[in-house]
């Protein structure tokens, strides 16, 4: 593995400590992790409820869906599911992008694009839920 044409040499004089000093801690580091856990705990019952509900709507017409969604409890659960899902999704995709995209610029652009897309999809889902639930 030794490369004779390019022997090991030092091209940075700052120590790792000197580099980190003054930058401060990120402080927000645990927030991402915690939010990911909270949404995942919330999604366990919400997902089971959603699967159960969808199984009862396999042959549903549009009117059946409107009828089903007109219950305030179902609407609330649906909105909670939408919020938790897309929050969990954008946090998860952010980690995946940060792990596999080394170029800073592309990384930042990809993370922002994913977040924007998740927010938009969540809003579309939430508005549709409200339209369905309030239309009857």
């Amino acid at each position, binding site marked *: *593995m030794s490369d004779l044409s390019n*022997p*090991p*040499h*030092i*091209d*940075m004089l700052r120590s*790792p400590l000197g*580099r980190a000093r003054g930058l401060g801690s990120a402080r927000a580091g645990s927030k991402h992790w915690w939010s990911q*856990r909270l949404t*995942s*705990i919330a*999604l*366990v019952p919400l*997902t*089971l409820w959603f*699967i159960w509900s969808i*199984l*009862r709507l*396999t*042959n*549903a*017409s*549009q009117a059946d*869906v*409107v009828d089903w969604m007109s219950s305030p409890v179902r609407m609330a659960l649906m909105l909670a599911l939408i919020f938790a*899902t*897309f929050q969990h*999704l954008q946090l*998860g*995709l952010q980690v*995946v992008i940060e792990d596999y995209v080394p170029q800073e610029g592309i990384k930042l652009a990809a993370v922002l694009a994913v977040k924007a897309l998740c927010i938009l*999809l969540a809003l*579309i*889902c939430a*508005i*549709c*839920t409200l*339209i*369905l639930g309030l239309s009857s």
Partner: protein
Amino acid sequence: MKDVRDAQMVARNSDGKLVRRPLSPHVQVYRWPLSMALSITHRVTGVGLGIGTLLLTLWLLTAATSEGGFERFQYFLGSAVGLFLLFCWTLALVFHLLTGIRHLWMDTGNGFEAKQYQNSAVAVLVGTAALTVLIWVIGLINWYW
């Protein structure tokens, strides 16, 4: 300027000679224990489910905007391609849910004994197969009746 991570790959050994630090081996040199495969699949299914949210969005969107659109979307979901997508989606969702519960349990500091680690991994696989089959049996019965 050189990337700091590259710059720090050079250090002195105990003789004071400059050497390149050894790199730790990566995935390609490891055996693939079950837990590692599950962890990677957890991530892959997570990304897959992210794409799958488009299915949920389209379902809600067509239901909220047009009766004809909803009928067409329901018809698509009942086609071979639709059923295949729904099956993959169910499988990924159940798998991600169960490995997620396993990860939450490990977040509390439990389940790291070699035996528990292995058994919980097997339990996740068995549970995924059983739950997916159960969901589809109920779903198909509801669909035909």
